[in-house]
C-alpha cells in the first residue's frame, strides 16, 4: 500500500485544475449525492441532447480523489452517447472494485487509468465512485424524463 500509487500525478493535476466544474444550464436532471462516512458531497447536473451527453456540470466538495474523479468523468463522458457513458461507468466501476487486480484499458479510460491505484485502498473507492454514482443517477433521471416527454 504505497500512497504514491494512489496519488498519481494525473490525479493531483485534475484535483488542482478540475475540468468542467461549476453548475451550468441547461440541464434535465440535478442530483445531490453524499458520502455519509466522510461527508464528501457533490451536486451534479446532466444535460442530455438526444442520445448525447451534452454536458455534465458539478459543484463538488471533497478530497483529491473524489474531485479528480469528477473532473475525469467530465472529460470522459461529455460528448459521448448515453450508452457509451454507461459503458464507461461499468468499466470504471470494475476497475475500482477490482482490488488492484484489474488491468485498465487506457484507450477506453484515458486519464481514468490513474485511478487504478485507488482500487488498492478500499476506503477510498467510494470517493472515486461518488461523482460517477451521481452521474448515473442524474442521467437515468434525465433519460426517463425525456422518454416520458416523448410518450
Amino acid at each position, binding site marked *: 500500500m504505497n500512497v504514491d500509487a494512489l496519488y498519481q500525478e494525473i490525479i493531483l493535476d485534475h484535483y488542482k485544475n478540475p475540468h468542467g466544474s461549476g453548475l451550468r444550464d441547461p440541464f434535465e436532471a440535478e442530483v445531490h449525492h453524499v458520502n455519509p462516512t466522510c461527508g464528501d458531497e457533490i451536486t451534479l447536473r446532466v444535460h442530455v441532447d438526444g442520445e448525447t451527453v451534452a454536458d455534465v456540470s458539478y459543484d463538488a466538495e471533497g478530497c483529491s480523489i473524489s474531485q479528480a474523479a469528477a473532473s475525469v468523468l467530465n472529460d470522459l463522458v461529455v460528448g459521448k452517447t448515453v450508452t457509451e457513458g454507461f459503458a464507461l461507468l461499468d468499466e470504471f466501476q470494475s476497475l475500482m472494485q477490482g482490488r488492484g487486480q484489474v488491468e485498465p484499458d487506457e484507450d477506453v479510460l484515458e486519464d481514468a487509468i490513474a485511478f487504478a491505484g485507488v482500487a488498492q485502498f478500499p*476506503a477510498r473507492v467510494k470517493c472515486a465512485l461518488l461523482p460517477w454514482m451521481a452521474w448515473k443517477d442524474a442521467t437515468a433521471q434525465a433519460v426517463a424524463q425525456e422518454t416520458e416527454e416523448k410518450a
Partner: protein
Amino acid sequence: MTAAGGYDVEKVREDFPILGRTMAGGRPLVYLDSANTSQKPTAVVDAMAEHYLRHNANVARAMHQLGAEATMAFEGARDTIAAFVNAPSRDEIVFTKNASEALNLVANTFRNAEGDLAIRPGDEIVTTELEHHSNIVPWQLLAQRTGATLRWFGLTDEGRLDLSTIDELINERTRIVTVAWVSNMLGTVNPLDVIIARAHAVGAIVVVDASQAVPQMPVDLTALGADVVVFTGHKMVGPTGIGVLWGRRSLLEELPPFLGGGEMIETVTMERSTYAPPPAKFEAGTPPIVQAIGLGAAADYLTGLGMDAVAAHEREITAYALKRMGEIDGLTVVGPAEAIERGGAVSFTLDGVHPHDISQLLDSYGIAVRAGHHCARPAHQRFGVQATTRASFYLYTTHAEIDALVEGIVNTQKYFKVV
C-alpha cells in the same frame, strides 16, 4: 461416538472447554440448558480476542489501516451470516443486540410508519400462544399504541398450533403475522409454509422468530419466503450482545428508522436529517463489531460441522431423551411427545415436585436445566401449569448426559419421597 449426521461428538466437546468443568461436590457438568444459551467453542472466543488485541478500530468511520481491517472483518461477518442463512442479499442483514431488539425494531418502526405501512385502529396483528415473551410484548405495545388488535393462534393439546381457524384469524384486516419457527418451550416446529402462504394471500407481512431454529437446522431464507426473520447470536455458539434481523429489502427501505444517530444517517443538519440505505439505516451508533465477528466465527464453526449433521444429532438425541423420559413414572412432557417436527427443548412436569426443586436437585448432581416459565408464560397457562422444568440439547449433548438426566430425575423423586 459418532452422531447420526456424521461428526464425532466427543471430539467436538473438546472444542468447548466449559463442558469439562467439575461442579460443586465434584460432579462433572451436564449442561442441558442450551435453549437458554449455548456454550462457545474456543475458535469463537479466540477470534474475538485476536480481533480486540490485534485489529481493533471503529468501522466505516475510520479510514486508516486498522479501520480497514476492522471494517473488512465486520462486513465480512455480514457476508458470512448472509451466506449461512442463504439470505437473498447481504445488505438485508442488520445486526442488532439480540433477537428481542430485532423483534422490537420491527414493531417499533411499524408504530412510526406512515402511508401504506402505517398501522391503524381496526388493523390486526396475529401471533401465537407459544411465543417467547419477546415476540408477544412488542406487538402488545404496538397494538396499544396504534389501536390495532392483537390476535393469536391457540394450541392443540399436543402443543402444536391450532390451524383450524387460520382463514378467519388471518384475514383482510391482518397486517402482520408473527410466529416462532421453533418453540423454545414446547419444542414444536411450526408449519411456516402454510402460515406464510395464507398471510401473503391477504397481503400481510410475515415475521419469523427463528431464535431456536437457526442454531439447530439448515436455514434457507430465500426459499422460506418470509418478510422478516430474526435470530440471536448466543444460542448458536456465538457471543452475547448480537442478534440478526434479516428483512426484505423493499420493506427495510420503506420502514422509518428505528434508532437515530451515528452512522445511520446520510446527512444531518440541526433542522433535519436524511438516512442511509439499509442495513446502515438500522444500525445507529457503533455496532457490536467484535460480536459480529464472533458470530461470523460461530457460523463458520457450525458450517464446519455441517448444519445437516447438527440437525441430525439434535433429532437423534431428542428422540432418545423423549424415549428415556417417557419411562419415568409421574413425568409429563409438555409439548410434542414424539421427535417429529420438534426441536431439542423438552419441558416437563413431575408429580409432587415443583420445577424449581427439580432443577435445584439436578443442579446438585451437576446437571444444569432451566425451571420456570421460560419466557413463555402464556404457553404455560394454556397447559395449566405455572412452571416447567426444561432440558434442552445441542450439538455437544451426549447420550450419557441424557442418562444422567434421567437418573437425576429419578433420584429427585426419591429425595422428595414422591415415589
